[in-house]
């Protein structure tokens, strides 16, 4: 192999790339939190709602987990303007990922609801807890502990998955890497540096999520043992 690596160009663009990494995190955060809240409502409906709610939420989940998110975002980006709704590419991508995440996060949170054991509820009731105290001391902590690990992995997945934004011209980390590569042609170096930034992002996220999980939710495993 006679390719000579020249990282000089890539490193010069580091601040620009890091700015992209911030956009990546913004997309992941916003999609995650709106997806989690929508998903919470969906999970509640799936477990406690009347039949028609269960059906509608079920259909939603089936649709969003069985079509590629690329296609979902295409729809938001190109079909909605026809209906007079104009979205910036950033908004379309974030919204698309949020709607997609909502489906997965509804399933995760539903499993959390179902993991609450009737025996613990009985115990709480006979110890004299009110409904609110039961929620606060027994049900919510239990659900949080159960769903914390899959939620963390999902967040990491979103950090990486937000690179889909590059397809629509969003200037997040991957988008900016493509921009630089097409202008200076140091493609290999640029993408090596970009990959490294992704690794650092996800490692930091894993470690901090792991610490939070260990100290607040008594979750074992992950990167920290």
């Amino acid at each position, binding site marked *: 192999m006679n390719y000579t690596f020249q990282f000089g160009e890539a490193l010069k663009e580091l601040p620009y790339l890091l700015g992209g990494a911030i956009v990546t995190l913004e997309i992941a955060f916003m999609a995650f939190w709106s997806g989690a809240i929508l998903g919470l409502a969906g999970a509640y409906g799936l477990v406690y709602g009347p039949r028609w709610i269960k059906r509608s939420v079920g259909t939603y989940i089936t649709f969003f987990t069985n079509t590629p998110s690329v296609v979902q975002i295409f729809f938001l980006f190109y079909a909605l303007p026809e209906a007079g709704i104009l979205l910036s590419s950033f908004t379309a991508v974030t919204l698309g990922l949020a709607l997609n995440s909502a489906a997965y996060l509804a399933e995760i949170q539903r499993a959390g609801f179902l993991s609450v*054991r009737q*025996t*613990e509820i*009985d*115990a*709480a*009731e*006979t*110890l*004299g*807890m009110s409904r609110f*105290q039961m929620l606060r*001391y*027994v049900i919510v*902590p*239990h659900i949080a*502990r159960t769903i914390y690990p899959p939620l963390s992995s999902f967040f990491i997945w979103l950090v990486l998955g937000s690179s889909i934004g590059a397809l629509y011209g969003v200037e997040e980390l991957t988008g900016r890497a493509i921009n630089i590569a097409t202008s200076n042609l140091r493609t290999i170096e640029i993408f090596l540096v970009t990959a490294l930034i992704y690794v650092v992002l996800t490692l930091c996220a894993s470690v901090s999520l792991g610490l939070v999980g260990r100290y607040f939710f*008594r979750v074992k495993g992950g990167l920290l043992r």
Partner: protein
Amino acid sequence: MAHLEIDNLCASYGNTPVLKGISLDVEKSEVVSLIGPSGSGKSTLLRALVGVTKPTEGTVRIGETTVDYRSAASLRSVRDSMAIVFQQYNLFQNMTVMDNVTIAPIKIKKWNKAEVRKHAAELLERVGLSAKHNAYPDELSGGQQQRVAIARALCLRPQLLLLDEVTSALDPELVGEVLDTIRDLARDGMTMLIVSHEMGFVREVSSRIVMMDKGAVVEKGPPAQIFDAPEQERTRDFTARILSH
């Protein structure tokens, strides 16, 4: 005067009647045991007494007070005077042993925290778990979890303790430690209503035994009567079948 007086208590699941007019008394410092085939309604009776399953008919009196299971205030006072331990260990999985034992007195009753913790430490010592204050339930054996559940019930200083087959989900070698704890309580004069299939233990610890079948009381009497000279055919069959195991 009876400490707990149950008169004609009925309960159903949906439209199926499960308790069909149960009457029985428990005196202060007495241990009364409920025996009977599986499905006869023993658990339902205990659950009805603490209002987890709502009785449909009949009266329950604790001391001088008649319980109204539809009134939240009355239910609170029932749960102040009675504590129950279920067959399945139902400790709160997200809390340490100490928090399991103290959460109700501290957070719900708002009793003095330092005193409650001191009392809890004594109770845990008594059930042989002083080394486990900071353990979580999933780090304990079934027998240890069940002893924590007993300590948790006692920490509310109940006048009456209800125990529903607290040993039947345990491995045989763990049964003894839990029975020892209950024996200890009986010796100290704790008033208890117990469901158990451990016939040797029931005979030794109870002052009276109530035989139930199909949601009704078949026979009541002292252990000697129930085991040696039962008046009812069904009691004889049941004890013979259990003792032959």
